[in-house]
């Protein structure tokens, strides 16, 4: 084609060459630019959705295995000579026997059971054999016996966690190659684990402990669980709701229905929109300085966490609530005022009930954001290791140390053992599950009650 080399300037000078059938050079260029521009948009969307997908996929594939756990099941003979030397089954006597005693019971039972089943591997001595059992298993056994002392002297079928590395081996995290480099496990032990699996002694089971156990130390990733974190998060969310909902609704009612237009209310408005954009860590500093240092509330307690998160979510809730109140048409107010209701009665009897679905939706979404908040909780000490469940709220449980789900994610992620990455991802799955539930409730509320005026 001859006009393929023509410059746009000369095109303008010679319009005869243009045709409806053959697309013009300049037009081609413009259309190409158009197509490119559109493709940029598609690429941007694909990239952002792909990263979202990759992120969720890696976390799920890492974390799903946290819900399954390698478990050893074998008969254990609870020898009276070790566990209850006095033979009286008195609670005080039983409590004296530490987990070391139970560890010995487990080890000897495990060894004799393997001997009976004729399972052995060269190079696995008694100590190495014992390492297959989690360090948490003796404590498990001890609790069983302490709750039911009549078990002593009997032979029971005990199932307890296998060691963290064995767990990793079953899940593919530990291989023969890595075991050679690892001082905590030998390839022989893994071979033994294979044999145990064939014999049905070593199985993987659903890990309820992951949802109920407290956190465990660095050496026992297999025993660590989310119990305290979930409870702490629930405590905090309940307290946040109790504090933020009345405060937020009251503030919004005032600003939307009663506030005169003056300097003061302007100041409040500007303040609220600015507070909504203050980095969350600043609220952590505030909590540390005011609630812990000045008011001397106990560190890492859930009440301080709730107070900090309340202050942090308040602006968001106020913004959402005001939008909901504004959506109630003025005719409702006029009608109520017209039949003689006072301004206060109008608001509380008519506007507020009509706005409440919108308020609830906004509040739940605000709480969902608050549930995932981590940074301020780190500063008020909720990252500390908490081994005991806080007591019930009525007994002052809100003043006792607790931790929260997102904080647990962080503290597991910062530990060195790769087994904790699996735990961390598993905790995220639980966290995301809770968020999905909250969001679904919010969406359902909106669908069910939303009114178009």
């Amino acid at each position: 084609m001859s006009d393929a080399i023509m410059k746009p300037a000369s095109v303008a000078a010679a319009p005869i060459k243009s045709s409806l059938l053959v697309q013009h050079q300049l037009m081609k260029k413009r259309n190409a630019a158009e197509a490119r521009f559109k493709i940029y948009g598609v690429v941007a969307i694909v990239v952002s959705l792909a990263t979202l997908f990759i992120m969720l996929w890696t976390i799920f594939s890492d974390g799903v295995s946290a819900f399954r756990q390698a478990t050893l099941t074998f008969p254990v003979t609870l020898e009276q000579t070790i566990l209850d030397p006095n033979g009286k089954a008195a609670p005080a006597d039983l409590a004296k026997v530490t987990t070391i005693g139970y560890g010995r019971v487990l080890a000897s039972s495990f060894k004799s059971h393997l001997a009976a089943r004729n399972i052995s591997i060269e190079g696995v001595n008694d100590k190495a054999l014992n390492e297959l059992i989690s360090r948490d298993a003796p404590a498990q056994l001890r609790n069983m016996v302490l709750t039911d002392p009549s078990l002593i002297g009997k032979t029971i079928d005990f199932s307890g966690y296998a060691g963290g590395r064995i767990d990793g081996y079953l899940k593919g995290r530990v291989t023969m190659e890595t075991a050679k480099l690892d001082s905590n496990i030998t390839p022989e032990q893994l071979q033994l684990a294979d044999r145990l699996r064939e014999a049905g002694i070593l199985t993987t089971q659903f890990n309820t402990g992951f949802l109920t156990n407290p956190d465990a130390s660095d050496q026992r990733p297999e025993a660590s669980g989310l119990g305290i974190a979930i409870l702490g998060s629930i405590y905090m969310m309940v307290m946040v709701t109790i504090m933020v909902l009345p405060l937020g609704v009251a503030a919004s009612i005032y600003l939307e229905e009663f506030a005169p237009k003056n300097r003061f209310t302007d100041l409040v408005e500007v303040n609220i929109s600015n507070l909504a954009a203050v980095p969350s860590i600043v609220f952590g500093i505030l909590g540390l300085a005011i609630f812990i240092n000045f008011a001397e509330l106990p560190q890492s307690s859930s009440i301080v966490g709730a107070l900090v998160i309340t202050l942090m979510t308040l602006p968001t809730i106020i913004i959402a609530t005001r939008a909901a109140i504004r959506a109630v048409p003025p005719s409702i107010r006029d009608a109520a005022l017209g039949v003689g209701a006072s301004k206060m009665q109008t608001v509380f009897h008519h506007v507020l009930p009509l706005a409440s679905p919108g308020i609830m939706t906004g509040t739940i979404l605000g709480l969902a954001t608050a549930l995932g908040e981590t940074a301020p909780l780190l500063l008020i000490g909720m990252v500390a290791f908490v081994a005991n469940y806080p007591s019930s709220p009525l007994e002052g449980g809100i003043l006792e140390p607790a931790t929260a789900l997102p904080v647990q994610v962080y503290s597991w992620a910062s530990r060195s053992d790769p087994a904790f990455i699996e735990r961390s991802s598993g905790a995220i799955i639980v966290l995301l599950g809770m968020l999905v539930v909250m969001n679904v409730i919010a969406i359902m509320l909106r669908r069910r009650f939303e009114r178009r005026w």
Partner: protein
Amino acid sequence: MSLTLVFAFILVLSAAGFVLGKRKALASVNGNSKHLHSLPNYYGWNVAIYAFLPALLCLLAWLIIQPIVVERQLSGLLAANEATTATPALESDLTLQMADVRRLATGLDTAVAKGTLTGDEAAKLRTEFGNVREKLATAGVALGSDVTPTILAAAQSYREMSATGAMGRAVLAIVVSVIGFIYALRLTGKDFRARNSVERVILALLVLASTIAILTTVGIVLSMFSESLRFFSMYPASEFFFGLTWAPNFAGDSDFGLAPLLWGTLYISLVSMLVAVPIGLFAAIYLAEYASPRVRSIVKPLIEIIAGIPTVVFGLFALVTVGPFLRDWFAAPFGFGNSGSSVMTAGIVIGILNIPFISSLADDIINAVPQSMRDGSLGIGATKSETIKQVVLPAALPGIVGAILLAASRAIGETMIVTMGAGAAAKLDLNPFEAMTTITVKIVSQLTGDTEFNSPETLVAFALGMTLFVITLGLNIFALYIVRRYKEQYE
């Protein structure tokens, strides 16, 4: 009398007030509520409020004032003692001693509660008659150091004052509650405007709730300002703002130069904006201008899911996936270093976090551009992309700039992703694959664990927090200003 008991008394009294007030109002009109000024319940509420609210306020005021008064008296006592021993008392010493006194006093309280000491013994305990620390240890109270006579005396007077205070508090609250109750009940009658009275109180409560936002800001500014001032009294402000090395050392002799932290923060934010702005903007343009309603209704919520995911999840993603990926595929092969946590890691992940933020703000802004402007441009023969580039975007520019500034302020204040993905090494470096650190990371690391606010090593976190607060607040105000100015053009 314990706090809960006093509170319960007030509650019961106001409940009784509700019943009696309502009954008295009805009795004053012989049961015909038509002759009352307000509905009967309002009379009940009025009495309940009078019995409850003033008493509660007294209680709260007392709770706040008492510790302040006690501390002041005790520090006077301690300072006087210091003066006789001729060692000048530093302020930090005094706070340390106060902490000791408080710890000892609570220790004595637990000992009394556990029954190892009687109340009388605790008050008469002297250091001359045996070791106080050991005595308390038997009660399960661990004390850090040995108890000096001064501290013990102070702790005992602390306990005494607290006990007197608790007594006074209970008496005051109950008296105020009863007075309010009687006063309101005497007011009650058929001509009393109970509704107006109750509504005034409710309005006051509403105003109070809306001032919480202001109180929060005041709290933030005050707490950070006062602690920052303390920091600057220990460490020169000029070295903080212009120093080039950051080397905190809990043994003392630390360097707190802001520059490396500020550089890390800005560098990471820059990388994140380079990721978020093009992707977010193009996504918004596509969704607003090209996508069919069906695609839009699916894709827009999907992108907004990103905004609903907690930042700690992004942090783990940076730590486990993005960091090692960048290290193994870019940094190590091209010789940029060998660090999984780096400016790039944190920057890219923060960028992803900010995509939905920019895209939904920009989407709103683009949609606010009047259709007539597009029609005009298309009508004279511009292609769609030319219309967007030459008409829509220039019209939307102020709003988009505002959105970008807001996103930048979020990137600067982001904590979890940088804590998990950027590293902890404070340095001034240009290589984006090096680990660097930010203001927020250092706030976390200086404040986690130890919270005795006496050393510059912990107090520096407040100065950092204030710097962060000022930067983000400035950006926000500037952004809102731009957005607001833009909005006025079309309305």
